[in-house]
């Protein structure tokens, strides 16, 4: 199992907590999949509302590690302040750093991301940057102190899978010792298995599970897929070839 900032996690599946049909289904998705990390956010709570407090009670009951995000932040200043509020609230140095650069694609702003990551690392945060698969960007993030990288598979919420397999494979080869998590864009367990077969350490999924007709079944599907893919990566897969090669021995075949 991967280690994130000296914490050994219990599962290669990380789950978001948004958009489920009900809190009970969210909780069951976690229990049945064994996901070990839950992403959460910080948002305003109106006057007499208790929604945030109730939600927190549910997450605490799950007994999983909590990874707060800076979702929706478009500036470095906003992301840093949100991270500080999240640390105060959730009492963890972990932060999933999102600095969004484009409203339609929710593509990370690479320049703001590096600046915010440097600032937060200097301030004692353990940063999980939501990034693209760009090698140079990831180099800069590691230089800024990030010990985990979370490249997107595809834009958030699209379910398109791994849009740039070559880029993700290059990233794995370039950073053999940095835990890599495919974050965002996965729609199916087979895509999660593919990420693991590329040698990735974990995946983070939200919409694909929460918006499935049966989120609990889909969470289980993803959990099994990441294990299957991880086993395949460990097993040293065969090399593909163009020409057929018989698997049944030719020698000894009856002369008919």
């Amino acid at each position, binding site marked *: 199992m991967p280690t994130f900032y000296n914490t050994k996690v219990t599962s290669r599946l990380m789950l*978001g*907590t*948004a*958009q*489920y049909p009900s809190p009970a289904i*969210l909780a069951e998705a976690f229990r049945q999949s064994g996901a070990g990390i839950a*992403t*959460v*956010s*910080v*948002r*305003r*709570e*109106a*006057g*007499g509302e208790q*929604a*945030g*407090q109730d*939600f*927190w009670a549910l*997450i605490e009951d799950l007994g999983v590690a909590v990874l*707060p*995000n800076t*979702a929706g932040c478009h500036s470095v*200043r906003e992301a840093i*302040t949100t991270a*500080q*509020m*999240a640390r*105060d*609230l*959730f009492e963890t140095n972990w932060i999933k750093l999102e600095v969004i650069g484009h409203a339609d694609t929710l593509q990370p702003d690479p320049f703001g991301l590096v600046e915010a990551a440097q600032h937060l690392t200097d301030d004692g945060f353990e940063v999980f940057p939501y990034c693209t698969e760009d090698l140079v960007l990831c180099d800069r993030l590691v230089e800024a102190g990030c010990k985990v990288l979370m490249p997107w598979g595809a834009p*958030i919420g699209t379910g398109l899978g791994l849009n740039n397999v070559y880029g993700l494979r290059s990233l794995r080869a370039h950073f053999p010792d940095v835990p890599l998590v495919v974050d*965002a864009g996965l729609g199916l367990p087979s895509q999660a298995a593919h990420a693991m077969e590329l040698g990735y350490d974990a995946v*983070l999924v*939200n*919409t694909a599970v929460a918006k499935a007709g049966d989120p609990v079944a889909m969470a289980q599907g993803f959990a099994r897929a990441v294990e299957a893919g991880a086993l395949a990566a460990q097993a040293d897969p065969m090399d593909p070839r163009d020409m057929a090669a018989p698997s049944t021995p030719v020698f000894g075949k009856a002369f008919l």
Partner: protein
Amino acid sequence: MKIIVNGDPLDSDAPTLAQLLEQLGKADAKVATSVNEGFVPKTQRADTPLHDGDRIEIVAPRQGG
């Protein structure tokens, strides 16, 4: 004095951020705070005076991806 709490105007006589939270029934709630876009840790709320026109954000845990 008139302050803005989570985007809504509010008439308040709370001298500090801690007292504002108490008046709003959130003294013991799991929340984080900022004043005028600057983060205020929970340990400093009692020492953070409020002034007319201050913009206060009070956030709580919420679902996220």
